[in-house]
């Protein structure tokens, strides 16, 4: 790692939702930390000055779901390749779901990931611990030990816990240590062999559908258990308007529940699948126009606290298949912020709300020290141009997966610099 420099970020518009700051001021970094905003601190000499005039300076983004594919699926992507893609997208904290091979259910795995993350030194890698051993849904993982080894939350990834008693025990146990559970709401019986939203388009295409109830049934079940156990829980990747309604009712009763949505669910719908486009095969599936609109306003109103990339890089062949056989997922690190900014340009939400949902929002629900530009904080920073136009070229993505349905989209807004703990880890030339 390079020698830590004194850095002066000059003339940028600082947006720091955690501290209610939105103003054009200078920012100063020394020893990896933010040491001042505004006037030059006494005795500060900049080794490096970044001209941020006409740009936005915000906390480095916190992404709740990034599949690095390592270990286990290095033919799809590697930690190195995906960390490189993350910082090009301004993402300085990447949470890794536990469905690696082997799964993150041992201290060794958790340690390995955080260690490799530090070694690569581009984005903080935060492992999410497996809730049950090998994600089997039967026996509980050593959650306390995994937490000590760096797991910031616990999840069973996309594997359902069908045994309701196991889910109850998992919640009870985790609540003893105030651990956060990240829940993926999917009833495997109702999803069956479905591969897209059940509705008019699935009927036209003759593809088995995944009904809305596959999600809402489990949201309702888990909310009942959350209420009983008092655990802190977070619903990941909601796809239906009705799920948001259920969660808002529960919050109204005082439950400590939060939720996130994947950026592609704010832009795409079942209609994008209509030509069997396997790039649009995702879990949960892209749903109706109405669902998309409701999810958008839920983020705008703060009912959904975070937007993530749900990054899942794939090799070409994974998508070159019959729709139902194609592997689900989108390579999303490098389009997360620009697609978010598209919502700002379209007046769906304010720039401050967007930045909050990409930084302070996810950081707060995880309970980690990130997503803030406060004095004394680690200098994880994203600097971007709000208005720069560019066209997504899937072959030019830094991620090893170029599986993006957004190829050829014209987007406005692009990262110019990313800083991790006071190091300039990315500068677009």
């Amino acid at each position, binding site marked *: 790692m390079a020698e830590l420099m004194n850095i002066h970020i000059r003339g940028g518009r600082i947006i720091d939702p955690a501290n209610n700051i939105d103003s054009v001021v200078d920012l100063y970094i020394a020893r990896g930390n933010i040491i001042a905003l505004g006037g030059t601190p006494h005795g500060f000499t900049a080794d490096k000055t970044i001209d941020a005039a006409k740009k936005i300076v915000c906390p480095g983004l916190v992404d709740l779901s990034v599949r690095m594919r390592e270990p286990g699926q290095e033919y799809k992507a590697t930690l190195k390749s995906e960390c490189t893609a993350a910082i090009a997208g301004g993402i300085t904290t990447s949470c890794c779901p536990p469905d690696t091979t082997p799964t993150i259910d041992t201290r060794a795995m958790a340690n390995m990931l955080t260690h490799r993350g530090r070694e690569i030194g581009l984005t903080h890698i935060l492992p999410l611990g497996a809730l049950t051993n090998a994600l089997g849904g039967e026996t509980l993982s050593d959650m306390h030990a995994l937490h000590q080894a760096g797991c910031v939350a616990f999840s069973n990834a996309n594997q359902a816990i069908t045994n309701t008693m196991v889910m109850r025990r998992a919640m009870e146990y985790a609540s003893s240590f105030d651990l956060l559970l990240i829940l993926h709401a999917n009833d495997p019986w109702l999803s069956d062999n479905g591969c897209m939203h059940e509705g008019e388009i699935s009927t036209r295409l003759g593809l088995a559908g995944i009904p809305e109830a596959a999600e809402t049934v489990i949201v309702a079940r888990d909310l009942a258990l959350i209420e009983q156990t008092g655990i802190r829980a977070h619903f990941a990747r909601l796809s239906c308007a009705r799920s948001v309604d259920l969660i808002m009712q529960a919050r109204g009763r005082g439950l400590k529940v939060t939720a996130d949505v994947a950026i592609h669910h704010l832009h795409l719908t079942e209609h994008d699948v209509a030509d069997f486009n396997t790039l649009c095969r995702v879990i949960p599936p892209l749903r109706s126009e109405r669902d998309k609109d409701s999810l958008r306003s839920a983020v705008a109103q703060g009912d959904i606290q975070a937007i993530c990339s749900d990054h899942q890089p794939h090799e070409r062949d994974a998508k*070159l298949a019959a729709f139902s056989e194609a592997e689900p997922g989108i390579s999303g690190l490098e389009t997360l912020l620009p697609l978010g900014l598209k919502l700002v340009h379209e007046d769906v939400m304010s720039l401050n709300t967007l930045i909050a949902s990409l930084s302070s929002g996810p950081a707060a629900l995880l309970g980690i020290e990130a997503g803030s530009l406060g004095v004394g904080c680690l200098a994880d920073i994203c600097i971007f141009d709000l208005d720069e136009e560019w066209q997504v070229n899937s072959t030019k993505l830094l991620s090893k997966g170029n599986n993006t349905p957004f190829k050829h989209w014209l987007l406005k807004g692009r990262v110019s610099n990313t800083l991790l703990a006071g190091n300039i880890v990315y500068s677009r030339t």
Partner: protein
Amino acid sequence: MKPHLQYTNNGNLRHFLSIEDLQKETLQQILTTADKFTQFGQREIKKLPLLRGHTVVNLFFENSSRTRTTFEIAAKRLSADVINLNPTTSSTSKGETLLDTINILEAMHTDLFVIRHAKSGVAELIARHVPDHVHIINAGDGQHAHPTQAMLDMFTIRQHKGPFNELRVAIVGDILHSRVARSQIHALNSLGVHEIRVVAPNSLLPSQIERLGVHAYNDLQKGLDGVDVVMMLRLQKERMQHAYIPSEQEYFNLYGLTTESLAAAAEDAIIMHPGPINRGLEISSEVADGPRSVILSQVTNGIAIRMAVMAMILGGEGNG
């Protein structure tokens, strides 16, 4: 599906994948071209030189005897060289091996692939990856489409019932899993029938089926009331195992076409079935073999329709 996938830049038929995005004129052309071939089929020597020198590969990843045989006869009557291949689906459901198979056969100068596959969208997937001079006919993909079946059904309806615009048509049975029903619905709508009904219990009706332009009925008597055409669908016997319906007996009692249940339809209504028939499950033998059944003429017409589609794609037949 983008409309241009099935047409060349000149507006000729390039692939035949799904009825849904074809123009009405194309469907009418298929019917008129098939008319010519029907008359021709009654001659003693039934061979035409239209596709001489062309190679047609029947690539059936899913078993079929009837459809494959009629495609083979159709191609041979047009003087094409025909190869039949039945690769096992297990090794070819992934795109890599699927497209490898196509590439290899394409390297042997195949002009036309007739493809059947158990997964929806495979014909389209292949059509998107072949070069301009290679053509694809969809002989059934998953639960998505079976366009030549629908066209032979339209041909049969026209033959027996005349113009489409006054007709009421009921499609009865497992709509949920049926590629035949989906293609029939698109064809009937495009050709402008008066009304299309689908009749089944809700567990065998796909979500929002009304959006395809049909009226849904759970009651067979009400669904058949006054219809001119009854199109039955095959019920796979394993549907009971996945709780779609309770039992064969209950299904036959409620949705089986018998002389009694048929009484609700118009007096001169015709009975159709894409085959193979499950006698005593969706239809009684009495009706299947009765005077109003046109099931065998569907089979005969299948040859003329498949000749017409192949001739339009490869021989420029019917393209002005």
